């Protein structure tokens, strides 16, 4: 287990998104993220392993009845038991809040190549959430005030990102239509064409989330991430946050990402067939080839809230702040809007039509 201790006062240090470094919450001391060499990394791992007290046991998960391997660690700060599931790579002690990294889930094969660090703090995340609850013309006015935050969790989600070179071949039939009037007859000329295309196009860093428990649909909608802020992975970024290692290996998710690349390439190729009245694709052969694959971690905030007695959650992109979720719809407001728009447009359209009839 790895913990980052403040050299000045001994309290624990966590990653600060605004300052982009480790900060001690107690005395304010900052420490830059050090890029460790391979040897330094190995040393760190050895130390961590030696000092950890850990035992494993198999437990049946309550939520979906699956057999899960749970691991128990002893918190180095307060001695309490930290429970983690088989994928937890970073967590906090439930009792003293000590941010803890589990090194053997962040090393070797399971060490990410890159990471996008959180770009704003928990307070800002809460602010963004509050702003989100206020928006929407059909949102009940009480939603913003009565939605109570239960938990705001900063989580690094494991992703694999892929580069593809796609070769797309497409054949289609197309027509162009011309009209000509000669005397009493109208002639319609239809020119028939055979279209053939061979296109090469590359896609880079198409992400696929590697966490079983995070729904793919939600994760896809969190995109896009700004890769300009993606940096080489170092463990301190994770301090103070939850993190999970991947459930699926890169090869397992490749087909999902390849399907995306293929569909992008197909659309792009189809769009080169222009200038025709109709186009009918008769044959296509899209072949994606993976040229690069990297394991990364991307930041997300999971905001759990209660509204009118029920629990909901939204997911927020920890870098861009984009929120994926659904606001409740107030029936009263919906009716109000419908009636209002109806009345207004009825009056306007009526006047316009009457004027047209008279004119």
């Amino acid at each position, binding site marked *: 287990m790895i913990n980052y201790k403040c050299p000045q006062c001994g309290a624990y240090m966590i990653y600060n998104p605004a300052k982009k470094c480790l900060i001690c919450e107690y005395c304010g001391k900052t420490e830059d993220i050090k890029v460790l060499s391979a040897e330094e990394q190995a040393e760190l791992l050895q130390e961590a392993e030696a000092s950890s007290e850990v035992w494993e046991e198999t437990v049946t998960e309550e939520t979906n009845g699956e057999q899960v391997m749970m691991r128990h660690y002893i918190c180095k700060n307060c001695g309490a038991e930290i429970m983690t599931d088989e994928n937890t790579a970073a967590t906090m002690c439930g009792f003293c809040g000590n941010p803890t990294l589990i090194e053997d889930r962040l090393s070797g094969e399971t060490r990410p190549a890159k990471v996008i660090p959180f770009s704003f703090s928990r307070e800002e995340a809460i602010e963004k959430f509050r702003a989100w609850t206020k928006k929407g013309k059909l949102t009940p006015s009480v939603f913003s005030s009565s939605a109570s935050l239960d938990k705001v969790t900063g989580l690094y989600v494991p992703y694999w990102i892929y580069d593809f070179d796609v070769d797309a071949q497409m054949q289609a039939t197309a027509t162009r239509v011309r009209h000509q009037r000669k005397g009493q007859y*109208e002639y319609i000329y*239809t020119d028939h*064409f055979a279209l053939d295309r061979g296109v*090469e196009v590359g896609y*880079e860093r198409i992400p696929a989330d590697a966490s079983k428990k995070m729904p793919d649909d939600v994760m896809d909608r969190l995109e896009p991430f700004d890769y300009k802020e993606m940096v080489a992975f170092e463990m301190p970024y994770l301090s103070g946050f939850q993190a999970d290692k991947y459930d699926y290996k890169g090869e397992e998710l490749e087909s999902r990402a390849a399907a995306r690349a293929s569909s992008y390439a197909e659309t792009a190729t189809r769009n080169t067939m222009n200038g025709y009245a109709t186009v009918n694709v008769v044959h296509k052969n899209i072949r994606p080839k993976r040229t690069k694959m990297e394991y990364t971690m991307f930041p997300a905030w999971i905001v759990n809230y209660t509204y009118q007695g029920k629990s909901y959650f939204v997911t927020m992109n920890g870098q861009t702040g984009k929120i994926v979720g659904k606001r409740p719809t107030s029936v009263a407001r919906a009716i109000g809007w419908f009636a209002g728009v109806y009345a207004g447009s*009825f009056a306007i359209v009526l006047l316009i039509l009457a004027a047209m009839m008279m004119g």
Partner: protein
Amino acid sequence: MKVGMKYIHARPIWLRVCMMAFCLMLMGNVWMTTAWAVESLESGSAQKVFDQASLFTESQAEALEERAAQIAEEEQYDIAIVTTNYTGSMVTYEYAESFYENNGIGYGDNKQGFLLLIDMDNRQVYIDEYNAWEENFQLSTRERDAILDVIMEYAYDGDFYGVADSFLDELPQYLNNGISGDADYQYAIEHGEPGQQEVQEPLTFPEAVKESLPLAALTALVIAGITLIILIAVQKTGAKPSSAEYQKGALRIYRRNDTFINTTVTKHKIETSSSSGGGGGGGSSHHGGGHSGGGRSF
């Protein structure tokens, strides 16, 4: 003639000569009258009313003759009113068209004009229009239907003079006030009928409002519905990114062939199309060159 010949035998020569001369004159008269009727003068055919079914009294026929002639003179299109008890093997519109062509009806070089046929054989009233390329003389289907609406009332009552008389009332109105144009001919196929406006008195404001109510209600419903759908959709946030996000550089099109195969052609004859209006069937005409028309049964 045979009767006449009997008397020529028995009479003196001067009487024979007189009788033969008289016969010749009769024949000549008939021939001349026919020729005169057939000849298409600048002002259209000399005779306007051809009451073969004897539906009109003499004075009625005269009145119609005068009016038709006057309209033809003023408006520069010919009008013929024809009644018949028997169309033979022809259907109503064929009879009307062939009558028009065979009896020298038509004004000017174009021979443009209108023919109203009261067909007692097939029990149809038919309005035929010929060669009305001039802007003023085009009757749209809607206008023809409007005229039929008015004149058929008389037909249902058996008042055939009324049919002809009201026809002479209605026709000039539509031709003078209707709006027509090339648009009719260009897209007659696609749109099915030339888009001419009906002549109406301008509406007052309250009337216009009442007319517009149902359409306004429907439109407002659609607008409000669409707005609601959009507002509900906005409640769910988080849209998937577009492909442009991940594309690396530009497409490289290494093979691009657009090969011409062949051309297929379809041909449509453009005519002011005709169809029977509401209330009862009727003939429709796409026959011969330059004819168009429509009719209704009674």
